[in-house]
């Protein structure tokens, strides 16, 4: 047993971090936020058309639509991610993929979460090999998820029934959201009797990919965000001075930071292990811990930043808002807890 990252895995993670630093560093992140209008994404009016399943070329930058303008996805970056193997990572080499597994995918998505990389990354990654062009980064794929669908206007292909989707003003400036009419998509476990049968781990709404993989990759993004907010809080606490000393010298602040690290490292062990076992129940547990680490991490980071944390200028709110959006994806917290309980 050696649970540590292999040399190749460390190199892969480092490579993705460098790529994202270069192509989607802080300036690019803030430029994307400003381009999105700054007051909430997807502010278009009216009912969005149900994006067709006829894939193929997007029109270069997402469809301009609605009052606020539908949000553009950086297609050049998307293709670059494709060329780097972000989407084709787990396809066999014979099929033009990289031939790696879930552990490596988790490392990529951790880095994506850390950088707040926008776009329907999970849906496109899971569609690689099934939707033409997805693996290469030519086709942007999104999928419906319960009552929500991310990046509907920018996507070339929508998996799942998106008829009647209505845009909402997304809390996350970099994740445009549409809401689907009706209910019935629920949480995916359908508990309710007390006999403790967790179900709903089999397939996603479209029946194409196991939803536990989507949950795991989402958990990995949450992990990356949790690690990043811990770093941000620590860096701020070391330099910001009050009462004549760095605020990080005060135990009250120190303990906030320590708790952030503890949550992050526990989530890391859970997410990495779930990637190795691919066990849906272990994934559910990892998701619980990663959601907690990301949500509480962003909140604590905001607290360490004090008044600066409440500003638009600091990146903290971007982490918190994205973590909120991710937490709504796929398996809900309640459903995950039921799944784990059912196996006890």
């Amino acid at each position, binding site marked *: 047993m050696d649970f540590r*990252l292999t040399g190749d895995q460390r190199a892969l993670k480092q490579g993705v971090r460098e790529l994202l630093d270069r192509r989607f560093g802080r300036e690019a992140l803030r430029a994307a936020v400003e381009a999105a209008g700054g007051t909430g994404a997807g502010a278009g009016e009216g009912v969005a058309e149900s994006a067709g399943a006829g894939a193929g070329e997007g029109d270069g930058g997402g469809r301009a639509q609605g009052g606020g303008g539908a949000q553009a996805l950086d297609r050049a970056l998307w293709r670059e991610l494709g060329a780097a193997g972000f989407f084709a990572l787990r396809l066999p080499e014979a099929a033009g993929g990289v031939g790696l597994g879930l552990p490596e995918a988790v490392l990529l998505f951790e880095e994506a979460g850390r950088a707040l990389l926008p776009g329907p990354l999970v849906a496109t990654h899971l569609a690689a090999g099934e939707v033409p062009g997805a693996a290469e980064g030519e086709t942007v794929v999104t999928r419906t998820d319960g009552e929500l669908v991310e990046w509907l206007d920018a996507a070339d292909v929508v998996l799942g029934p998106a008829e009647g989707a209505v845009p909402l003003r997304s809390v996350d400036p970099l994740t445009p959201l549409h809401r689907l009419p009706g209910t019935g998509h629920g949480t995916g476990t359908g508990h309710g009797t007390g006999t403790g049968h967790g179900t709903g781990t089999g397939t996603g709404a479209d029946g194409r990919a196991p939803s536990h993989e989507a949950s795991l990759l989402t958990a990995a993004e949450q992990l990356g965000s949790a690690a990043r907010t811990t770093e941000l809080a620590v860096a701020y606490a070391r330099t910001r001075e009050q009462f004549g000393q760095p605020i990080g010298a005060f135990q009250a602040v120190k303990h906030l930071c320590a708790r952030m690290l503890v949550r992050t490292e526990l989530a890391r062990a859970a997410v990495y*292990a779930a990637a190795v076992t691919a066990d849906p129940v272990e994934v559910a547990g990892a998701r619980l*811990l990663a959601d907690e680490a990301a949500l509480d991490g962003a909140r604590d980071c905001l607290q360490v930043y004090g008044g600066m944390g409440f500003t638009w200028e600091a990146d903290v709110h971007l982490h918190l808002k994205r973590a909120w959006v991710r937490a709504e994806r796929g398996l809900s917290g309640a459903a*995950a807890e039921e799944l784990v309980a059912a196996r006890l």
Partner: protein
Amino acid sequence: MDLAYTEEEEDFRARLRAWLAAELPTLPPRPDPLDWPGRRAYDCGWQRRLHDAGYGHVHWDASPTQRLIFLEETERAGAPYVGANFVGLLHAGPTIAAEGTAEQRERWLGPVLRGDEVWCQGFSEPGAGSDLASLRTRAVRDGDAYVVTGQKIWTSHAEVADWCELLVRTDPGAPKHRGITWLAMPMSGPGVTVRPLRTLAGSTEFAEVFLDEVRVPVGNRVGDENDGWRVTMVTLSFERGTAFVGEVVACRRLLGELARTARKNGRWDDPVLRRRLGRLGAEFQALWRLTQWNVSEAQATGGVPGVGGSVFKLRYSHARQELYDTAAAVLGPDALDLGREWNRDRLSSLSYTIAAGTSQIQRNIVAERILGLPKGR
């Protein structure tokens, strides 16, 4: 990221499992928790069996992964804990092994491994808890001996111990970390008085030890005079390492038992309680994975556990308390019955966020040593 055990590790596990299956049915009945001499004899007898079967030294020179497997399998099989041998096997022994002279290792390590001698720990004092380095028990050199006077507290197994790993102040004028010395003190000598302390669980898990001009030979000093703080840190890093493997296994088993109880007594139908159990399931699964992570790190870095143990202990000690609180919610009125063994465990668990470094001290360690935040004033 490889969670599979090697053939060699699986072989170690299989042999251990077979040995445990044959050995455990031949153990004498467990002594009453209040019968200290009986507990000592039982714990030492178990250590002797481990020694004779080749497992006596597993805490010291087995690989971290083998140690993980050992602790996992012994807990699963319901084997006895280290008990009275805790300090000898996990504190004093490793310290002597790392810092002692050849003669000292020869004198003390064998008896610990064979279960012949029991050690206790004389670190904390009434005025030196979290601020351990402020300890005031004095040792004054007199010929070939130190003359020791002072008071120690929270000393587990003091009533039945042969030896005490003792921290004393040898240079009151030096900065507090630099005037401390580590001594091996015989508990049988004149001037040593042990007074048991009753815990909130009603038991006498530990004691106060009063020292009145106790003579300790200079040859019993491990490390240099006034270098005891560094010597001690070696011991404490062992304490915060993989010491909780068995406990995590035990917690996961308890959680399974709770789920079965809840399904029987109807409380499983309460979704709030059911989800609380589910979250604990995720928590302890993750703590197990974190243990495997820490063990893999220790394996790669040569075996001495690092500050990762603080991360683990912080989360584990709170999770275990939450586990017992949840158990109380499952058991209802039974949670008030001290006749049920787990209730005593619940009371004991209240010490977990205090012993071996409070959660607050652990957070300071994490913040300063891992995150690099400045030391406070």
